[in-house]
């Protein structure tokens, strides 16, 4: 995969986020790396408490007050958002990056008409009021809202849940952003509406050409919509790869189990459904070694002792697992195995520097492993 020409719009490096709680700091995100190549759809999948929404919040720098970004970088179009001033950040929000939220019932202002809200967000544009109105109406039409002109004067409570989510998408794409972050945008909707929204989103993504960071716990939706997938568990990225890597050749036991558990994937009707026993890890008092080890059926001694490295499985496909390292070709040491592979959702950074291709190729047969903190090759 050579997508160096395109580059990544978003590169998250070694991002760590903590919440302060009564029991002590809760390590919501630890050492998260993620790339969103321009014009692609990257899915973040994980169960509750995996930190996927925190990731979205950190990129936008819209986190709750008790939250602290302790380390890392969020590079968007070449600049580090975590070091940008508030004014710079505001200039990016809604202009270069926009966002669609989970609950369509509460994410729009209840006392302003949607027309007002859609015109307000164009405040940076040097357009007349009529032009702004026309742009809003056009977007409403494109997301499939019938009678768009008349609907501009309506208030959010006069729309159904599905229609509100369409409005939210229209707003998010109105300013032609380079990146759209969608945080569980269809979770609150019924299945038949969910499909409608997903398709509309996909069509719009193609025509607008923006990249999407799509967060969901719904494996089917991820499979359908995304080009690349990042799997999160307990505040860490445990696996990344193309959508086919993840769904056809999962490298991490968690991903494997997660796919197994989805009742939609079980072709034969079964009365004994697979599960993942145990509870999600306590992020205030983390277990030693691998976060998934306490629930992992394949865990061996080393899993409970050392934090696993990111193991290079194939071009662009990595898993944070001791066992993957073993399976990958015996280089299970977890030592520094060479430069990062320039592939997968991380492709942009490496490829843009022009070195990833050689270093990736140069690793030859062995599975390249990298320490978890490893950044992009310089």
């Amino acid at each position: 995969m050579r997508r160096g020409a395109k580059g990544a719009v978003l590169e998250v490096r070694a991002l760590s986020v903590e919440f302060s709680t009564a029991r002590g700091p809760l390590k919501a995100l630890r050492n998260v790396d993620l790339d969103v190549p321009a014009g692609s759809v990257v899915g973040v999948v994980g169960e509750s408490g995996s930190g996927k929404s925190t990731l979205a919040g950190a990129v936008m720098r819209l986190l709750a007050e008790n939250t602290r970004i302790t380390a890392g970088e969020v590079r968007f179009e070449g600049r580090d958002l975590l070091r940008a001033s508030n004014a710079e950040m505001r200039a990016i929000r809604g202009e270069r990056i926009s966002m669609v939220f989970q609950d369509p019932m509460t994410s729009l202002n209840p006392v302003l008409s949607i027309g007002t809200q859609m015109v307000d967000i164009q405040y940076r544009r040097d357009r007349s009021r009529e032009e702004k109105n026309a742009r809003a109406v056009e977007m409403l039409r494109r997301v499939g809202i019938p009678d768009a002109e008349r609907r501009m004067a309506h208030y959010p409570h006069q729309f159904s849940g599905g229609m509100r989510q369409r409005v939210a998408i229209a707003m998010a794409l109105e300013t032609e952003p380079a990146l759209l972050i969608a945080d569980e945008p269809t979770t609150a909707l019924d299945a038949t509406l969910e499909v409608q929204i997903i398709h509309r989103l996909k069509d719009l993504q193609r025509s607008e050409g923006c990249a999407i960071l799509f967060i969901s716990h719904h494996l089917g939706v991820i499979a359908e919509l995304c080009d690349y997938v990042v799997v999160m568990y307990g505040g860490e990225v445990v696996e990344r790869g193309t959508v086919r890597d993840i769904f056809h050749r999962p490298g991490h036991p968690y991903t494997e189990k997660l796919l197994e558990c989805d009742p939609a994937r079980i072709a034969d009707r079964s009365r004994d459904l697979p599960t993942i026993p145990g509870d999600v890890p306590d992020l205030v008092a983390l277990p030693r070694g691998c976060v998934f080890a306490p629930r992992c059926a394949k865990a061996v001694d080393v899993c409970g002792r050392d934090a696993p490295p990111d193991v290079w499985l194939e071009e662009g496909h990595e898993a944070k697992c001791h066992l993957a390292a073993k399976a990958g070709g015996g280089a299970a040491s977890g030592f520094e195995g060479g430069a990062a592979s320039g592939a997968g959702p991380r492709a942009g950074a490496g490829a843009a520097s022009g070195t990833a291709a050689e270093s990736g190729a140069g690793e030859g047969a062995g599975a390249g492993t990298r320490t978890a903190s490893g950044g992009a090759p310089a």
Partner: protein
Amino acid sequence: MWLYLCKRVVLGAVIVVVAVSLLYSMIHLVPGDPVKIVLGPRASPELQAAIHEKLGLNDPLPVQILNFLGNVATGDLGVDVFKNRPVADIVLEQLPHTVVLVVTGIGWAMLLGIPLGCASAIHRNSVLDRIAGVLSVSCIAIPSFVVAIYAVMLFAVTLKWLPAIGAGERGNLASQAWHLVLPAFAVGLSWVGYLARLVRASMLEILGEAHVRTARAFGLPERTIVLKYVLRLAILPTITLLGMGIGILISSAVFAEIVFARPGVGRLIFDAVSTRNYPVVMGAVLITTVLFVVSTTLSDLINALVDPRLRSEE
């Protein structure tokens, strides 16, 4: 919208009718003859009978209530037996004084309290917020008549900055305004606290709502977010509180009018109670209650203007 408006107005009217009936039947539920209460125990039986007849107290209670309601509807609140003047005239004569005091009191409280609440909410946990928090709670806790007395003691007696008693010279607006300062301060002080606290609480609540995060995610300027997206919603409970505030302030006005020896409905009712002039007491209570109902209804209507969800309710 019209449906909502009608509903509110009808509800207000029903409350007034129930209030009048309650008030009227209260006189009869209380042991003892109201005529005796008015005339004192030593009045002659003939006089009592005459007054009984005159006040229509010989009819059955529901008929009396209906008659009374009919009279109230035509603006007839009965007659002051002592002065032989219509009660409505007596009360309405005093009402403007009280209304001026109440409006001034709540006015300065609004001007100070609402911005204070906003500032506290925006700069949450700052020094300003903490000080404002303690001050508001203290303002709320201290009764207005104690504030009034202490204010007289401090500003009128000790410092001699402001006049202690009276409403000022008749016709001299400056003097009247000067005399209004202390009473309005006493009446409004606790409202600074109420308003600051309520505005702060509702601002914080709205600031935490999902749609504000959406507005932030679109990079809207903080000014726009606070003034257009947050305040518009946060002000709703404040409007309701102000509507009710009129009624609560009338109570404080009674004390202020007595401490500062000012004319007004409070003073009127106080004097009427002392002379057990119950038609005047009833009239004054009635008119202030109507004032209260009108102001709460008005605040509901203003809320409906701001909030489209209320308008399309059902």
